[in-house]
């Protein structure tokens, strides 16, 4: 009734349930941090860990296929491993890795001090963490629930009730509930990205002045927000079909298993762009810096990215050409698939135009970016082959498809990620990664990658089916399969070299000190110290142009040659040093972690249909939610 007392009481008699954490250093601070940079590092570390785990799963698969009639794995172990390899690489490596780079660098690139919702950001990470623990807890002996129906989980295989003997154990249950949990995490982080990018740009940072990486993360965030609810519904249907007897995908009751494929790929194809667009954004940052030229055709690159974002929703049925959709549908989807190659091809020429006649420095980051262009082009071309329906009908479910999407996702995303690591880790940790080890890392990766995945094209054309745990000798597949397996181990060695490089250069501090701007960069993150201060920018930068930081360092003479400006043109140089005093940052909070881990018991309750964990989980969730709601964003004092 009395607004004055209302306003006062909000700050005075707030009930304190758990003591507010305030440490910003030490091990515990990582659990309560809401700093986008620390959360970014945690996403990156988690993604790298799962890259290794998913890689080990792949190596086990390859050991089984090294020889005809391999006996390393049983058929059911093989099913579990290829399911978890795909699920891990898509949901626990590709998506979190992009979010890691986005979390760390999007605020820095747009001149912001944090993301729009710091606690929601932490919540997103902890949900992904809880989802990963949930999925991998299925490996505990006795649980008998390692997902085994493929990362695509086609019905009616996955949706038929356990009582009917399909996929015994809890595999599809862990899989569907786990991915729903991961979807909650990626949706919240996507909403956060959209609001941050749209709302928190520094003065003068108009949309068309944003770095391309920020643009790609914006497109990816929109794709995530619209794609995740669709897979959520599909997984709910699978789960209830399997556990509560609903009939969505039961043909005997009139249910249509193809509905699942439509829903899955309506999510699944945008998901492909969710995975690749951040990689395109990363190389669009590295190439101009390493070529000392502006990105060729900035606006075209941005609009191509947006066009891919829209067209990505109209091509899903090319995953279903052999399901009998009818000539009109497959023609339409074949055409739309050819169409989406256009903006992708445009980007490739933009990147080549950027490098062309540049003063190219072949740093490791640049090598990985050039590798990205080459490998992604090969993957793109085999993708265009899939748009030709008769050819696709031959290639479906063979290793040709496996070759294609690994060229796009490994040759694309993972190459870009490694390039991004060499490019940006000096900013994150203040130390350069060793370039000599880096070049060994790149060349072993390039050789190992091609040795692994190029022969798969041939194996596919020779007819070797995917997802099959053994093959007979005498089919002409033996030598190529051995090459593939050896290539896989070369990739593993290369990854190990990268890990060694990180440990030597960063953990053991042997790397050269990076300084603020080691690459002579163009975007705002290079204008601040390495590692950046907690508040990012002492002065919020005022942006006047695209590549603003570059234009504060260089101008051009009448002949178009670069002239370095006297030092002092960059931000803050003409100002007295600022120690960040008086900048209010959001305080650490434990409730994002509490809420996220409230989802874990709910997940187990769903799988085992048990009330007690459900109630426990709901109570933890509600407690976390209300405590979070009461807690102010920033604690004074």
């Amino acid at each position: 009734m009395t607004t004055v007392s209302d306003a006062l009481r909000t700050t005075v008699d707030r009930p304190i349930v758990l003591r507010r954490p305030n440490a910003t250093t030490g091990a515990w601070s990582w659990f309560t941090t809401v700093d986008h940079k620390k959360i970014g590092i945690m996403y990156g570390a988690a993604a790298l860990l799962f890259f290794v785990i998913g890689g080990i799963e792949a190596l086990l698969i390859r050991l089984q296929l090294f020889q005809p009639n391999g006996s390393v794995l049983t058929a059911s172990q093989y099913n579990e491993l290829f399911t978890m390899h795909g699920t891990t690489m898509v949901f626990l490596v590709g998506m979190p890795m992009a979010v890691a780079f986005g979390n760390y660098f999007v605020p820095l690139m747009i001149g912001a001090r944090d993301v729009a919702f710091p606690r929601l950001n932490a919540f997103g990470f902890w949900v992904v963490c809880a989802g990963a623990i949930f999925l991998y807890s299925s490996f505990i002996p006795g649980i008998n629930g390692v997902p085994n129906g493929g990362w695509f989980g086609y019905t009616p295989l996955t949706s038929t009730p356990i009582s009917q003997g399909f996929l015994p154990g809890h595999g599809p249950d862990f899989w569907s509930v786990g991915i729903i949990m991961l979807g909650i995490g990626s949706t919240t982080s996507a909403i956060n990205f959209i609001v941050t990018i749209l709302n928190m740009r520094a003065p003068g940072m108009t949309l068309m002045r944003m770095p391309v990486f920020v643009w790609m993360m914006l497109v990816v965030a929109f794709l995530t927000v619209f794609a995740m609810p669709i897979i959520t519904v599909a997984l709910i249907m699978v789960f209830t079909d399997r556990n509560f007897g609903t009939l969505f995908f039961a043909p005997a009751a009139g249910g249509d298993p193809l509905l699942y494929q439509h829903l899955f790929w309506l999510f699944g194809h945008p998901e492909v762009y969710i995975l690749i667009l951040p990689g395109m954004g990363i190389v669009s940052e590295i190439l101009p810096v390493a070529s000392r030229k502006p990105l060729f055709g900035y606006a075209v690159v941005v609009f191509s990215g947006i066009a891919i974002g829209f067209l990505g929703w109209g091509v899903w049925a090319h995953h279903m050409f052999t399901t009998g959709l009818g000539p009109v549908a497959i023609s339409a989807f074949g055409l739309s698939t050819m169409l989406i190659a256009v903006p992708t091809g445009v980007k490739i020429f933009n990147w080549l135009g950027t490098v062309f006649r540049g003063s190219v420095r072949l740093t490791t980051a640049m090598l990985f970016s050039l590798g990205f262009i080459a490998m992604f082009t090969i993957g793109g071309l085999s993708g265009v082959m899939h748009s030709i329906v008769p050819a696709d009908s031959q290639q479906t479910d063979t290793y040709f498809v496996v070759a294609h999407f690994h060229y796009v996702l490994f040759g694309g995303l993972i190459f870009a990620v490694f390039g991004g690591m060499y490019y940006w880790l000096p900013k994150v940790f203040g130390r350069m990664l060793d370039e000599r080890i880096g070049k060994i890392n790149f060349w072993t990766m390039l050789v190992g990658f091609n040795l692994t995945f190029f022969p798969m094209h041939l194996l596919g054309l020779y007819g070797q089916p995917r997802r099959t745990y053994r093959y007979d000798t005498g089919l002409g597949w033996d030598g190529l399969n051995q090459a593939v397996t050896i290539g896989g181990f070369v990739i593993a060695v290369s990854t190990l070299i990268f890990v060694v490089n990180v440990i030597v250069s960063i953990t053991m501090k042997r790397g050269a000190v990076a300084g603020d701007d080691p690459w002579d960069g163009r975007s705002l993150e290079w204008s601040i110290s390495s590692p950046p201060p907690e508040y990012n920018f002492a002065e919020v930068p005022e942006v006047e142009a695209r590549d603003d930081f570059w234009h504060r360092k260089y101008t051009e003479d009448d002949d178009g040659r670069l002239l370095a400006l006297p030092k002092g043109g960059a931000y803050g140089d003409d100002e007295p040093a600022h120690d960040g005093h008086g900048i209010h940052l959001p305080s650490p909070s434990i409730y994002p972690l509490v809420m996220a881990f409230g989802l874990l018991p709910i997940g187990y309750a769903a799988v085992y249909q048990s009330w007690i964990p459900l109630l426990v989980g709901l109570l933890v969730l509600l407690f976390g939610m209300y405590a979070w709601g009461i807690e102010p964003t920033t604690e004074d004092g």
Partner: protein
Amino acid sequence: MATIEQTAAGSTPATTGDDHAAGAHDPHATSTGVTHTKLAMWIFLASDCLFFGAFISAYMLYRGRNVGSGPTQRDLFDIPFTSATSFILLMSSLTMVLALAAIQRGDHRRVRIWLLATALLGATFIGGQVFEFTEFTREGLHVDTSLFGSTFFLLTGFHGAHVTIGIIWLLSLWGMSSRGRLPQAKAESVEIAGLYWHFVDVVWIVIFTIIYLVPQPGS
């Protein structure tokens, strides 16, 4: 949840002295002019559209495919009853708007009245849904009876869950207001709860039309 987590706030004194400075130092300025929380809620609602869209698509695809036994729409639906509960839910959008208007002019007693009224109208709708579900189950329709049972119960059930979350949210706001923790300055928390509430109502208009009003093929 509904607090503005504006973190670029508290900018430092102007140094460059150019014309951007004014905008840079309003602690609540956002690049679009829309607050973070409101923008986030709109994006979430857009996402939720796809959630309901997928369930509605499944319902429409399977409409009329009653392979096997089990009661059908024609055996079960009581259109006047559901119309009445739908009308009650729609009226709750009116009381929601009144609650927002009340907090915007600082009338905290009316804020609480209208918030409670909205929650009660919502609860009445949920009561109607519980009655309907019980009735249908008694007449032999379960989730595992037929495709109609599966699609109907999941679609309307998830809508009911959304309404229930909305009721808890409204009651939380009511509780905050009663303890004096919902000042006029926080009117936006009511507005954002309202966005969610109106969205859930609009979704029900679509669901009600498609499930109850559009005639079945072949009937």
